[in-house]
Every structure is written in C-alpha cells, then in structure tokens.
C-alpha cells in the first residue's frame, strides 16, 4: 500500500488536454491511452473500492474496467466526460463482479481504508467534526448491502444520473430511485440516530455515576 493520492488529480487537468488524449487514443495511440490511465486510475480505483468495500475486489474491478474501456474506446462518443464514461464502466464491472461472486459484504471498513482528508479547513474544531462525520459516513456506507451502496455512491458521491445508474446496474429507473431512497434513510439512521442514541446513553451513565 502506498501513500494516499488525491482522487481528483484529473479534475485539475484541463478538459481540453483530456479531450486531446481521448481523441488520440481513439485513433489507436496506445501512449495516449496509457496517459489517460495514469491520470484517472486513482479515481477509478477509489470508486471501485467504494462500490465493493474490498481492496482485492476493487483491484479486479479496476483492471477489468480499463480493459473494457480500451476495447470499447471507439464507442465512446465524447458527448460525456471521459471520467464519467469510465465511472459508468466501473460501476457496471463492479455490479457484474459482485453478482458473480454472489456474496454480500457487510463488514466494516478496514483501518487501512479510512481515507485521509487532503482539503485544508480553516476551523480546526469544524475540521475535526467534519472528519469525524466523514469517517462515520464511510463506515455506514461500508455496512450497506452492495445494491444499496452502489446507488448512493454513484448518485451522491459521483453525481451520475438516475438513468445512467439504472442502465449500468441493469435495473429500472424507478428501482434505482427506490434503492437510493432506502440507502439514504439507512445512512441517516446509522450516522445520526445511532450516534445520538449512543450519546444519550452515555449521558445516562454519567447521570447514574453522579
């Protein structure tokens, strides 16, 4: 495992440069495709990890996604961003991969998977609070069933449309919306209600001690 790398390096690149690389890669330039891989692999791996909740699965999904992207690059019409297209492929690969494995993961994230915050915040207290909330949300995400986790990750973290999510997961748009609704409710329960309940039970213990 190496040091965390920002998942959004690609966003700092001009879309023009990405567009040029995509055009060259579509024309058969392998070096251009390699350059695209170098600029997007961290983001792709991050998505795969969030969808699968497991490093080995994420690695497999990431490898499969780039092979599919390479084979299907001529079909990329360029009417969406390359990264969005890649995220769709990754989501599809993750769905297939988890379906093939036929298992549902509910385990907590490993300590290694806790992400580090690279964005500076001005207020140290607020920063600590935000970091704690992010960690709680990530743990709650990891405990969601994969079919609920997939929709909330793709919609609320990666901002894909309901239609795209439905297409890549092989479900109807209404099913995608229902899953998203359930996923958000479960996250809200796990993140806020349990912590509030734990907080109040700690207060009860404190009261009894007094």
């Amino acid at each position, binding site marked *: 495992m190496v040091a965390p790398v920002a998942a959004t390096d690609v966003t700092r690149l001009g879309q023009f440069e990405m567009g040029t690389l995509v055009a060259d890669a579509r024309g058969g330039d392998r070096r251009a495709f390699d350059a695209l891989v170098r600029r997007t692999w961290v983001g792709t791996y991050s998505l795969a990890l969030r969808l699968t909740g497991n490093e080995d699965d994420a690695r497999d999904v990431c490898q499969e996604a780039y092979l599919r992207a390479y084979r299907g690059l001529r079909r990329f019409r360029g009417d969406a961003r390359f990264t969005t297209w890649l995220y769709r492929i990754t989501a599809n690969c993750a769905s297939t991969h988890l379906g093939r494995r036929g298992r549902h993961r509910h385990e907590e994230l490993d300590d290694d998977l806790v992400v580090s915050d690279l964005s500076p915040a001005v207020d140290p207290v607020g920063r600590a609070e935000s970091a704690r909330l992010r960690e709680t949300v990530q743990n709650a995400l990891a405990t969601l069933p994969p079919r609920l986790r997939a929709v909330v990750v793709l919609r609320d973290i990666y901002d894909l449309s309901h239609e795209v999510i439905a297409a890549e997961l092989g479900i109807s748009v209404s099913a995608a919306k229902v899953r998203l609704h359930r996923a958000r409710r479960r996250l809200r329960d796990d*993140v806020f209600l349990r912590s509030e309940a734990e907080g109040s039970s700690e207060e009860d213990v404190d009261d009894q001690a007094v």
Partner: protein
Amino acid sequence: MTKQCDHLADLMPGLLDDQNLLSPEDAAHVAQCLSCQAEMSRYRRLERTLQDLRDLAVPVPSGLLEDLLEDLDSASERRERHRIAGRRAASLVGLAAATAAGVGGVLVLATRRRSA
C-alpha cells in the same frame, strides 16, 4: 411528531434530488416545526459529507498502475495478433479466389475450344 412530520420524513430522502416534492403546505409546516428542520438538516449534512468523499484520497495499492498498463500491453498484443491473423486469412482467401477464378477461366476456355 404529527402526521405531517411522518409524511415529510418519507419525502426527505427524495428532496435531495428534487425540491419540488415539497408542497407549499409542507414548506409552511417545516418553517414552524423544529423536528422537521432537524431532520432536514441531517439529510443536508449527509449530502454534503457524501459529496466531500469524492475529493478524498484513498490509499492505493502499490503496483496497481503497473498491472493496469501490463494488462493493456497484453490486450494490445492480442489485438495486433488478431489483426495480423485477419489480414493473413484475407490474403489467403483472396489468393484462393484468384486461383479458383484462374482455374475456372482455363476450364471455360478449354470447353469452348473443344466445342468449336
């Protein structure tokens, strides 16, 4: 908690996508209901936190980038082999067709000469 609070609790996960789900009556209720305001605040915080996750780094496995590029090398080689094999096959088919046409031509000429 009122019936309207329950109704809004059902709506709130969807409000993150579509604010229009909130009718004027619902909005008026939220404006004076601390419980619904707290609930809405929870969803807003959840939404912001999820959005923040996209910008966070994850620890990436060592060697993955190299593996990705190696996989692509293999895929490229396979594609090139298929392309060359396809060309060879096309050449052979072309050669076979030309040979067949030649043989056919000779046979036709021979048949015409005999009948003449």
